[in-house]
């Protein structure tokens, strides 16, 4: 059975999704939409097959050929666009982060249930070969019981005067564009996936050292106590040079060993049972396709077979809950228990009050 895909939002990430849908047996891109109509027409013309181009996503959602909406708009618009798509009877695969607040996520889940459609959040990093390999080793009990998962990353700080042109993260009101939500939701999702732990209490330091007034935060360290009993610590530090630290990536500590997933060509490093650290390669089949291919194939199957999506709304919402708890923990100086209270579920993290002008020469 062939499903028609409508892609909403044609920014940087859209190419990967369109490529994957084109490679997907049973999937075909039938429509694209972008507020920039020229861009929509350009993408429609550049791709094979007949693709309708829309300036307004609502027109795309009214298109009867569209079975699945691929929602790639800025995070603060995910809820509005996804709910409209589901209310129009479309299945939705929505980019991460799911939405700026837990309340937004809940509204998306409700729309899914009331329309009896599928909703998946595109947490692509858990479909990367190293994530799948680490997860397999954990499931095989190669490191015993998981004790902790630590992940440390660097990122470029965004200093005043370095604002890229026309990027949605720098527009006023664009909630959900801070590093905790934007990058952190990938890191916590992958750490949860690898370790099997779900946060139940979160303690966070969120700060801004070099990027004042440009992005809400440029560094954070967030520790979560989980169920089952393990801890996940995620840190990201904005710096002024582009480099990877020796520890960039994930380390999963277990009772009898540890796994390092720090980008070794899809494989991971394993030290267990008192043996020297050795490389465990990814299954070759994992290198035959991209993470986005796997993601789209999994979602397609869930639609066709009416089975749970590979990343459900409830699952992805936990990443937003973690991020929200981290912001609140840092603001209040206290550890936050999950689930959050109804008031805190509506908290959407920081957002810019005014749109920043792009730096000259961009």
């Amino acid at each position, binding site marked *: 059975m062939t499903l028609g895909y409508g892609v909403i939002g044609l920014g940087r990430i859209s190419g990967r999704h369109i490529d994957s849908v084109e490679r997907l047996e049973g999937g075909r891109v039938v429509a694209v939409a972008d507020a920039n109509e020229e861009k929509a027409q350009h993408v429609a013309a550049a791709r094979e097959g007949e693709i309708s181009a829309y300036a307004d996503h609502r027109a795309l959602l009214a298109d009867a050929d569209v079975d699945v909406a691929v929602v790639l708009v800025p995070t603060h618009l995910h809820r509005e666009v996804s709910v409209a798509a589901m209310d129009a009877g479309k299945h939705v695969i929505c980019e991460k982060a799911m939405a700026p607040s837990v309340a937004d996520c809940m509204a998306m889940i409700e729309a899914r249930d009331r329309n009896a459609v599928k909703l998946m959040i595109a947490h692509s990093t858990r479909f990367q070969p190293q994530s799948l390999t680490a997860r397999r080793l954990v499931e095989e009990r190669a490191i*015993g019981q998981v*004790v*902790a998962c*630590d992940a*440390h990353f*660097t990122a470029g*700080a965004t200093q005043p005067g370095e604002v890229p042109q026309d990027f949605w993260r720098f527009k006023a009101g664009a909630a959900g564009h801070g590093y905790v939500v934007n990058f952190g939701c990938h890191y916590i999702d992958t750490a949860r996936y690898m370790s099997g732990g779900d946060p139940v*209490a979160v*303690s966070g*330091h969120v*700060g801004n*050292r*070099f990027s004042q007034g440009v992005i809400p935060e440029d*560094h954070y*360290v967030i*520790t979560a*106590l989980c169920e089952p*009993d393990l*801890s996940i*610590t995620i*840190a990201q*530090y*904005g*710096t*002024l*040079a*582009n*480099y*990877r*630290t*020796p*520890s960039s990536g994930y*380390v999963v*500590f*277990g*009772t*009898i*060993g*540890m796994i390092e997933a720090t980008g070794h060509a899809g494989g991971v490093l394993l*030290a*267990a*049972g*008192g043996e020297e*650290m050795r490389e465990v390669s990814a299954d070759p089949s994992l290198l035959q396709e991209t993470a986005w291919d796997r993601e789209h194939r999994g979602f397609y199957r869930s639609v066709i077979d009416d089975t749970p999506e590979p990343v459900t709304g409830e699952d992805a919402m936990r990443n937003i809950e973690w991020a929200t708890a981290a912001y609140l923990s840092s603001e209040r*100086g*206290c*550890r936050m228990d999950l689930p959050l209270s109804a008031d805190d579920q509506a908290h959407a993290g920081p957002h810019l009050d005014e749109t920043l002008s792009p730096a000259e020469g961009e």
Partner: protein
Amino acid sequence: MSVHELGYGLIGCGRISGPHIDAIAQTEGARIVAVADPNPQKAEAARAAIGGEVAVHADWQELVADATVEAVVVCAPTQMHAEMSVAAMAAGRHVYCEKAMAASMGGCRAMIGARDRAGVKLTVGQSTRFRAPFAMARRLVERGEVGEVVAVDATFGGPANPPEMGATDSWRYRAESAGNGHIINFGCHYIDTARFLCDDDPVAVSAIVANRFSPGMIQEDQFVVTSTCDGGALITVALYCTPASTMPGDEGYVVIGTEGAVSALWRPDRVVLRRGGEGADPVAIDDDLREGPFVRLHRQLRRAIEDDGPVPVAGEDAMRNVEWGLAAYLSSERRCQIELPLSADLDGYVGPQLARTIPPTRD
């Protein structure tokens, strides 16, 4: 340097006394003239290791009163550090006290007060920062190789103490021993080295402390402690102890800067520098840093006594490590971030203690 031979008295002849005996033997103008330990076998073993004429005291107070003793090395359990050090300084002795400085902030402050009153030297054995790879990493940071420091991360593994493993006769299993939890005992090394690497001091501490595998045996076997520092750096220190302790033996720190990062591992010693756009460069450790940490500490202390110069690790400096550890306990208990300095009404706070002494069942 031709210096007067200073008489040293060693209080506590447990495991850590060995490196001190070796280091003092390699320090010009220093000789151990007296030892004290409540266990006569341990005292005798230390005397034999030192060689020559060494007085053996069963009571540390006798050693402090011994007129041939001019400097005292305190290697007793943490909760006795303050009492012993203060008594030694009040008797006019210089003091080298093992880490952790003391079990409480009150103890630390009493030691600093005694030092100032007596006009003697006091140093605390925060030896890890003197280890070659960490000292080299600091040198790279000082040279500006990583730019401005943004963060220091340090994660460690270690053995848990499950009840079935039983206890040894170590003071760490005694109920009355305050300051014997891993946060104070090991953590004070980790935070000291991290502070040294970034030259920044915690102003707020947030921690999660847990006991997963060692219930009733030790205070905690797992912690993750994040500190924001005065100069803007973030320091995150974690320890995960597991029954099999199969985690990497290398103990390491990563210093993340605006322009690059340096990682420093001990056992085996390795320093690696990474900078924007460049690969990872192993860095050779400078020869002058290769001397053992205890030798470097003792030589610096001896010089400080001779020249009335600065000690290797001042009391005010080491006190911050204890304060960090106590703040971590408080943060975990209260589930809130704790701001430093700790208020004076917490001077007697020593963190959690064991409910009972665990009788030794193994060597």
